[in-house]
Every structure is written in C-alpha cells, then in structure tokens.
C-alpha cells in the first residue's frame, strides 16, 4: 500500500471522531506550547540581560580586589589603590583608557526636604569615558578639582530629576552623607554594578572625584575597582593576560585580585540561563510524555473498536504492515497536529508574554525543531504498541469479533 493511501486512511480514522482526536492531541498541544513558551521566554530574558551587560561597555576588563568575583561596591579594604592603576597604565599596551573607582552604596543625598538613597562613585579623570557615561548638562570635573579632591559632584540624571523636580540642579548645593557638594552637571549611562546590570535594576548615582571619595570614605589611597578599556576587541585576551601578569608581579598573592572581562560574564551568564531554560523545558517536556500516554490510551480504544474492520481489511489482503502503518500514521497525525497547534499557541503566548515583560520575543529555530520532532517521536513511540496490537490480530479472530 502506498504512503498516500495510508495517510488518507489515517485521516479518515481521525475524521470519524474529531472531538476525540482533538481531546487526545490536547496533551501534546499543551506540552509543545509549554516547551516553546519556556524556551522563548528564557532566550528573551537572556538576550535582555546580555544587552544590559553589553551596555556597560564592550572591550572592558574589570580588575577587582580581594576576590575573583566582581564586587566593585565592597567596602572592605582593597588591595587595589592608585599605584596599581598607574602601574597598569604604564605597563599595558593596547589600552584605550583606564580608570579607577571607589564606590559606596547607600549614601543619603539631600536637597531641601528631598532625600534619596544613592551610590557614591569616586572616579579618576577618564572614568566617564571609560565607563561610557554621557554628560547631559553642565561640565566635567577640572584637573584642579580632581587633584585637590574638591567637593563637587555630577548627579545621575534620574537622581537629579527626582531630587530637584524640575529645578535646574547646576550650581546648587546637595548634601551627601552630611557633607555639602556643589552640583556641576548631570550624566546618563549605566555606571551601575555588573550584578545590578544583569538584573536590569537601575540605581541612583552621584559621581565625585576619586580623591574626594578617598578622603571622605576610606581616608586611604584604596580603590575598589579598576576598569581597563581595550582599544581593539582582538587584543582582549592579550591585554587581559598581560594585566594578570603585571598584577601578579606587583602583589603577593594571586587570590588577592580578580581580572574579569565582559566575555567571562557573558559566558557565565549564558551557562546559567541555558541551564535554567533546559531545566524548565525538561519539565515542560514531561507534559509531552503525558500527552503521549493519552494518545496511546485512545489508540488502544480505537483498535478495540475497530477489530471487525481490521478483520475485514485483513481478509481483503491487508498485510501486517498495512494495518501497522494505518494505526501508526493515525497516532503520528494526531500527535503532529497537536504539535502544530501547540507551536502556534506557544508562539502567540511567547509574543504576548515578551511584550508584557518588555523584552524581545525569541522563538529560536531549535525550539520549533525540538517541538516538532518531539511530537512526531511521541506519536511514533506511543503509537507503536496499539498499532502492533492491531497488526498482530489473527484475521479469523478479528472477523469473528462482534
């Protein structure tokens, strides 16, 4: 018997009881939709987080003190200080810029009656350009202000908006942790921590000269992080290796510092989100298996209902394979139809969910391939037993069955 014929036969079997076929395929519909939605949301979230991280600036190498993990807001006394920055700047080739930062979270910024919690960032001269911060109004710090540790500050533009509520901030005095600073400008850009960037959390920030921060916060020459901006992406690994070598020579213990690139973070992140996505998709796949059991159940009922028909077909010359193909294709058809509907459903849900969450909707090709091959596979796997049962019926017994 030809394939076309077998397909027609199977379609006929489904048409006999469309409601039953629909209910049977519902398990696969839900399973496939769940797999696609979860993968789409996982991929979408990952893309969002990656774009957050990338917005921090590409070609960036982070040197942190005390730990290999990026914790630039740590207030513990750091092994990094001004001299480390100078050494790195002196010895490394291929840098576009380098900057050091001393930061402190949870500072109170006050203007009049308004009071807002913000992070203080103390930065060196190139800090703004290295960290891709854009000046939106006013001016940058002068060399004199940098050198003497003047009490001047730049406000993150969202902080300025909150604090001044429409007033012009430039030239006004704000209090940061009780000390008075003159506002000389505002800026935008994500000079937030890496971890916060991953989570997409925005925080208020106040930028002051590094010398000022060192005097007000630690009273030492310590810095909490050093940012190295590499001129060409191709040099990233070379610069990074060189930086590690310089730091190892300068410091006693290797564990005292960490050198991390954006690529490392992206790698780690990719691993984490992929694992999460696969785990969730795996759970969703369980519902596919449940759907498959539903198909097997109905196919068994269908075989029992059609024993007489099987007997007649066998008497007319249907072989084992003909009957096997008829029932197997019917099972695969139900499953695949469920897979197709589930795919459309999953796609729509993913599109709606991503619109609500505000991240790009990503239905990668592999999730569609996965869902389709899964539903075909499930139809085959759970269809074999009933189909084989039908095919193995002896024509005499089947014909006699009432």
């Amino acid at each position: 018997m030809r394939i076309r014929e077998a397909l027609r036969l199977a379609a006929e079997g489904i048409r006999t009881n469309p409601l039953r076929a629909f209910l049977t395929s519902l398990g696969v519909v839900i399973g496939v939709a769940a797999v696609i939605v979860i993968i789409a949301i996982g991929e979408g979230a990952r893309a969002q987080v990656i774009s957050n991280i990338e917005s921090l600036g590409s070609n960036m190498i982070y040197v942190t003190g005390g730990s290999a993990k990026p914790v630039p807001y740590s207030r513990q006394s750091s092994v990094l200080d001004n001299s480390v920055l100078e050494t790195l700047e002196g010895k490394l080739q291929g840098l576009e810029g380098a900057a050091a930062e001393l930061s402190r979270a949870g500072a109170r910024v006050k203007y009049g009656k308004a009071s807002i919690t913000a992070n203080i960032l103390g930065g060196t001269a190139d800090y703004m350009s290295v960290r891709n911060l854009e000046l939106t109004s006013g001016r940058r710090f002068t060399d004199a202000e940098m050198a003497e540790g003047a009490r001047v500050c730049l406000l993150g533009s969202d902080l300025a908006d909150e604090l001044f509520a429409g007033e012009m901030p430039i030239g006004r005095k704000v209090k940061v942790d009780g000390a008075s600073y003159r506002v000389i400008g505002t800026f935008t850009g994500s000079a937030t921590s890496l971890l916060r960037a991953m989570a997409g959390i925005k925080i208020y920030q106040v930028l002051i000269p590094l010398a000022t921060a060192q005097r007000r916060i630690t009273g030492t020459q310590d810095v909490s992080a050093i940012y190295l901006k590499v001129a060409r992406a191709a040099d990233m690994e070379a610069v990074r290796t060189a930086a590690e070598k310089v730091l190892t020579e300068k410091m006693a213990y290797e564990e005292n510092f960490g050198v991390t690139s954006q690529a490392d973070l992206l790698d780690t992140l990719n691993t984490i989100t992929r694992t999460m996505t696969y785990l969730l998709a795996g759970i969703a796949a369980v519902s596919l298996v449940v759907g498959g059991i539903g198909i097997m159940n109905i196919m068994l009922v269908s075989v029992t209902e059609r024993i007489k028909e099987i007997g007649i077909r066998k008497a007319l010359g249907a072989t084992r394979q003909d009957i096997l193909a008829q029932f197997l294709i019917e099972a695969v058809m139900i499953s695949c139809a469920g897979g197709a509907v589930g795919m459309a459903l999953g796609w729509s849900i993913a599109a709606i969910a991503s619109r609500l969450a505000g991240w790009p909707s990503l239905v990668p090709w592999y999730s569609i391939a996965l869902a389709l091959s899964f539903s075909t596979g499930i139809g085959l796997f759970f269809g074999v037993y009933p189909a084989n049962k039908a095919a193995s019926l002896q024509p005499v017994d089947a014909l006699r069955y009432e």
Partner: protein
Amino acid sequence: MLISVRDVVKEYPMGAGSVKALAGVSFDISEGEFVAVMGPSGSGKSTLMNILGCLDRPTSGEYRLAGRLVSSMGDGELAHTRNKDIGFVFQAFNLLPRLTALENVMLPMSYGMVPSSSRRERAKEALSALGLSDKLHNKPKQMSGGEQQRVAIARALVLHPKMILADEPTGNLDSKNSEDIMKALARLNEQGRTVVLVTHEKDIAAYANRCLRFRDGLLVGDAVKPERGQCDED
C-alpha cells in the same frame, strides 16, 4: 487442480486437552466447479472455510491452492494470497460502514498492486455488472441487505480471484434476495469462476454442482451433480 486438501487437521486447545474441529480431511476441487460445503453447526465447515480462505492455518496436513502450498505460508504471503486469489462473501456482508459502495469495492485494490488511476473504473464496472450503477455513492446503511451483499460480491470479484468463497451468503437475507444472490453466484460460475459455498440450507446448496457433506470434523459425503435429496441434511 485448483484446490487440493490432504489429511487436514485443525485442533483448538480446550481446557487441558484439545478439540478437533477437522479430524483429517482430504478432497480436491477443480477449476470451474461450484461446490457446496454442507453440515450442521459444529461439523467443521466453518473451520474448513477459514482454512480454504487462508484466514487460518491447519494444525497438520497440506492445503494447496493453484499448486502453491498454503499450509506453510507466512502471514505476509497469506495476506497476498487472500488479496489476489480469493474473493470473500460473508453472511454479515462485512462492508466497512463508513465507506461508500464504490470505496468498499476499491478496498481490495488498495492492498493489491492496482494502479490508483484504474481503481475507480474497475470498481464501477464490477458494481454495474451487479446492477448497482445507481448506488455507487451510497453507504451500506442506505442500502438493503440484498444490495449490500451484491456490493460484497462486486468487492470479491474486482481483483478477478481464482475462487469465490461464500460463507452462508444468504443467511441474513429474505428468500427473494437470497435467490438474486444465488443467481448472481451461479452466473459467475457459468462464466468459469470457481465458487465454494458454505451453507446449511439445502435450497441454497442446490445451486451447486457438487456437494461436500461434513459431520464431526469428517467428510462424510461427496456427490457430484447431486440429484434432489443427495445434498440434504441428514
């Protein structure tokens, strides 16, 4: 010789032992014969019918159909033989209820090597020959018993089998329709087709030109051109 049956035994397991439905049967049927197989229920005639129709295999003994040893064929070969060499007419018609008359007649061709382009035409011809040209697209439920049985005969004929195997073909029909069906079978026989008819009604058996009588799994009578009375139940 079209059919050659030698020492055929069919046992069914029953409880600890077994029961012999056929206890060693031998006979031949030539091409073109019209044979009635008679016997009361339990005589083994249905079992014989299943074996002749390649629906079942004998426990022992040999069955040859057109020279080929059927009793040792595998499932696939049996299916092929049923498709090509045997046309079945059943008491309960056994049409597929969801298919039209035409589709039912086309069914054996879908399992044979008939090109799909010619199937419809051949099925139409077979149905017309039985006077059903106006019922092509009727489903079995929309037809009388006599019409359904004629569809079944068209289905049995459509692949030009070596023999027609009719198992109580008039069992579910009134006498008028029974006569029509038997006339149709007799006409086929006149055209040279071998017909084997299983029945327990002597009026029906009278259409045949040879009568095999069975009792308790044994062949107890074989009358060629039976006179009235020779093919009666005893």
